[in-house]
């Protein structure tokens, strides 16, 4: 068994920042990640980092934009924390040598982005995430922080008190991909989940193959609630054939969207009469699909994004990476022709419920970055707000886990504050298939049978559970393989739980997920080797995809309103009197339990009164 003060799971922006922060506080910290840090999907972020750095801008304006962008489902203490901390964290990156684009006076460049009242998106060409990730990994190397790379974390070692709020997280269990060994990692102070996105729940996504929502699913099964899972961001400009992202920076710099008739539809059809292409992402994605659905799409599938009028010099200076992406992955040179684009899954606004210090309701368990939900983004994330989230909340979680004195959080977690129970009309049974029948189905808390056992014993018990699960998967000689199960879920989610949602389709998705869960009972791993067994790795990931797909769909079915990225055919209005609350799902003996907690709109100095959201 390995042992450290703080264990960080995942090595993208949030994980690296958390590890550096814990190290700054003197903790013995290690990162465990299924990818080498520089392979993390933070590297694919393009647009930039929102930070109120300049005269005429303020963190208050940034917070206002964020709350409005969230469609009033973000919690003000979290959003304000993001906006207040972002400037110094962004400049910290500059001090670490990050290669930001520069203005003539030598200061870091900023540009306009969707839904922002000031051009505050700080960028490095159209490769800001790559520069951020590598800069932060450099700082990790400088500090000699230990990384266990290509170790896939499979479960948390959490005690099994009845209420999640009474539980403690003592460590993790991980599978060494290279050798096949399963080992425990005891965390003396805390575990920080920073596992990133969950886009692989869909089949058209900007997310990496590795983004299977492992941390969210793991924390959920250990008792930490998932929050606002129905809020999935579909980015309006992804390449149709692959889902590769074309940054919002293209529109920020002046790129224009056209339909098949060459009409600038954002204005001509009144989707956003003020901001046009720079309305927030949910608005633009719906506009594009409406164009396609009404017969004005190109090849009935996509629209055109044109940036030729910006001129070659400006494009190369600020958006060069886009030329390469469009050429390599769509065969279109955007200097000569408009790029085909359509909406694609991009980001999960929801995730593991945390407060503004990254703490979950389970003692010693933290989450930061995309896998977490504080909530900063509420119903819709603004472009340029994901990267500051990584550095701001990664740092805070790292500090807190390392024992630094911090101001008490204003956000409550678990059922500690006000809450109400919810109900949803599902056509099928929900949750685990075949509870208690099968080791493969297990994966939650490590039972301590009511006895008080030491943290190390608890981790060891979780290791043994995991070994049993893996042995079972490897011993089976026939059944079904994960690729089929995964593909079914991904296709159903893209078909039924996309930008436009309606009750019957959501129920179809729940049926498909149920069937997939049942098939998963007979999943087997054909590759019997212990060496670099990606068949096994993917089989373990697919389990996470199942739990998350169900949660997204369930949340979408429960929320009878239209807010942010969540559009419902039957309910075309935002219903503030009923729905200024977060959708919460807890894993209760293998079944999802639905409940709600109120959103916090009271900020430090003001209350963010919900207004009609127009751009």
């Amino acid at each position, binding site marked *: 068994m390995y042992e450290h003060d703080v264990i960080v799971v995942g090595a993208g922006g949030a994980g690296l920042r958390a590890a550096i922060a814990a190290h700054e506080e003197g903790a013995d910290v290690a990162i465990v990640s299924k990818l080498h840090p*520089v392979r993390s*999907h933070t590297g694919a972020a393009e647009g930039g980092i929102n930070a109120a750095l300049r005269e005429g801008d303020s963190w208050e304006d940034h917070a206002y934009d964020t709350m409005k962008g969230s469609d009033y489902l973000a919690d003000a203490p979290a959003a304000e924390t993001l906006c207040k901390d972002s400037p110094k964290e962004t400049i910290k990156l500059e001090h670490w040598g990050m290669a930001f684009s520069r203005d003539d006076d030598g200061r870091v460049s900023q540009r306009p982005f969707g839904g922002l009242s000031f051009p505050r998106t700080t960028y490095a060409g159209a490769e800001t995430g790559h520069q951020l990730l590598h800069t932060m990994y450099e700082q990790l190397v400088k500090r000699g922080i230990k990384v266990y790379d290509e170790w896939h974390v499979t479960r948390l070692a959490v005690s099994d008190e009845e209420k999640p709020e009474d539980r403690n997280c003592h460590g993790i269990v991980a599978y060494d991909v290279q050798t096949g060994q399963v080992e425990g990692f005891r965390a003396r102070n805390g575990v920080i989940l920073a596992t990133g996105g969950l886009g692989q729940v869909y089949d058209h996504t900007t997310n*990496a193959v590795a983004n299977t929502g492992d941390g969210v699913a793991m924390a959920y099964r250990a008792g930490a609630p998932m929050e606002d899972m129905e809020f999935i961001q579909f980015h309006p400009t992804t390449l149709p054939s692959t889902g590769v992202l074309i940054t919002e920076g293209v529109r920020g710099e002046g790129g224009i969207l056209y339909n098949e008739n060459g009409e600038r539809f954002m204005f001509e059809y009144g989707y956003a009469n003020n901001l046009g292409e720079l309305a927030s992402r949910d608005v633009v994605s719906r506009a594009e699909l409406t164009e396609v659905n009404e017969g004005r799409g190109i090849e009935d599938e996509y629209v055109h994004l044109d940036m030729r009028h910006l001129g070659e010099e400006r494009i190369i200076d600020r958006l060069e990476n886009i030329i390469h992406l469009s050429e390599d992955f769509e065969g279109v040179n955007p200097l000569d022709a408009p790029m085909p684009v359509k909406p694609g899954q991009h980001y999960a606004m929801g995730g593991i419920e945390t407060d503004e210090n990254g703490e979950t309701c389970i003692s010693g368990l933290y989450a930061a970055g995309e896998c977490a939900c504080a909530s900063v983004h509420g119903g819709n994330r603004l472009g340029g707000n994901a990267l500051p989230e990584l550095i701001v909340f990664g740092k805070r979680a790292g500090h807190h886990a390392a024992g630094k004195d911090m101001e008490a959080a204003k956000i409550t977690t678990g059922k500690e504050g006000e809450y109400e129970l919810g109900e949803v009309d599902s056509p099928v049974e929900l949750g685990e298939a075949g509870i208690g029948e099968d080791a493969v189905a297990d994966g939650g808390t490590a039972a301590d049978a009511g006895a008080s056992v030491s943290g190390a014993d608890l981790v060891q018990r979780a290791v043994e559970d995991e070994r049993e699960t893996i042995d079972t998967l490897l011993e089976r000689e026939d059944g079904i393989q994960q690729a089929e199960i995964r593909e079914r879920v991904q296709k159903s989610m893209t078909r039924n739980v996309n930008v436009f949602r309606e009750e019957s389709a959501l129920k179809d998705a729940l049926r498909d997920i149920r069937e997939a869960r049942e098939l998963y009972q007979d999943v087997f791993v054909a590759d019997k080797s212990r060496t670099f067994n990606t068949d096994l790795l993917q089989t373990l990931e697919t389990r996470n995809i199942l739990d998350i797909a169900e949660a997204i769909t369930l949340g979408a079915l429960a929320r009878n309103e239209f807010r942010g990225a969540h559009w419902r055919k039957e309910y075309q209005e935002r219903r503030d009197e009923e729905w200024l609350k977060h959708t919460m799902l807890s894993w209760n003996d293998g079944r999802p339990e639905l409940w709600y907690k109120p959103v916090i709109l009271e900020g430090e100095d003001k209350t963010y009164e919900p207004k009609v959201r127009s751009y």
Partner: protein
Amino acid sequence: MSTQVPEAVEEESATETASAGKQKRDAKKRERAERVQEQREAEAAEKARSADDTFHLKVFRYDPEVPEKQEPRFDDFHVPYKQGMTVLDALMWARDHYDSSLTFRHSCRQAICGSDALFVNGSQRLGCKTQLSDLSEPIRVEPLPHADVVKDLVVDMEHFYDQMESVEPYFQTNSLPDGELDEQRQTRENREKVKMSTRCIWCSACMSSCNIAAGDNEYLGPAAINKAYRFAMDEREGEDMKQRRLEILEQEHGVWRCQTQFSCTEVCPKDIPLTEHIQELKREAIKNNLKFW
């Protein structure tokens, strides 16, 4: 077509102790799962047969643990072609439809994570960025040369990482501004100067292509030297640091080993002018040494 290792001997499943009713249910479920699996395999075979166009890949296979794969071999896969399909897409299709033990690293699918550098038809390329239609068949896909093979197309990257980390690959300066909101200034020209060097994605295609690195295990290699270049040329670090960086680069296994064969530059998927960067550092080193004459 499938290249699976022959089925192992059937083992008793773990349901022995379960009740008869449960056994029956389980058996039924298992049957259904098997039916779905068989259907999938049949569909895949049909797709490959009926596709207008298929691509023939010959893929290197090796697994130290599996008797049939201990002796390296090539397996043939015929993958139905869709416009825009890349080598990585084809490998994923083959894995998901023919042989789930086919092993390779990949993640972002868009040439930024640097996981899938492979040896394709005799040169180092990123699988995700290489169109099948640009290659002649059969397409040979092998692991990167000059690295130990872990399994199939996966190589051991430790040596590459060690070299990258040996050049103090992090920003260092003695003159940071005092305020936590004060930026260091950098001219647009200087940012432009280091821009290409910062694009490295650590895929190790360059290292694998380099004859010198193949013969001298201690040679820093093009990627690590480029990483040092990125800092040495950054005006924010200052002259003191540049001295220190040149000293590191001038060591026995540093820049002077490069024989300007340009193989690294040719294979770099991010078009970094690696050889030029190495040459420029050689010139800087000479200038630097002359200063002390």
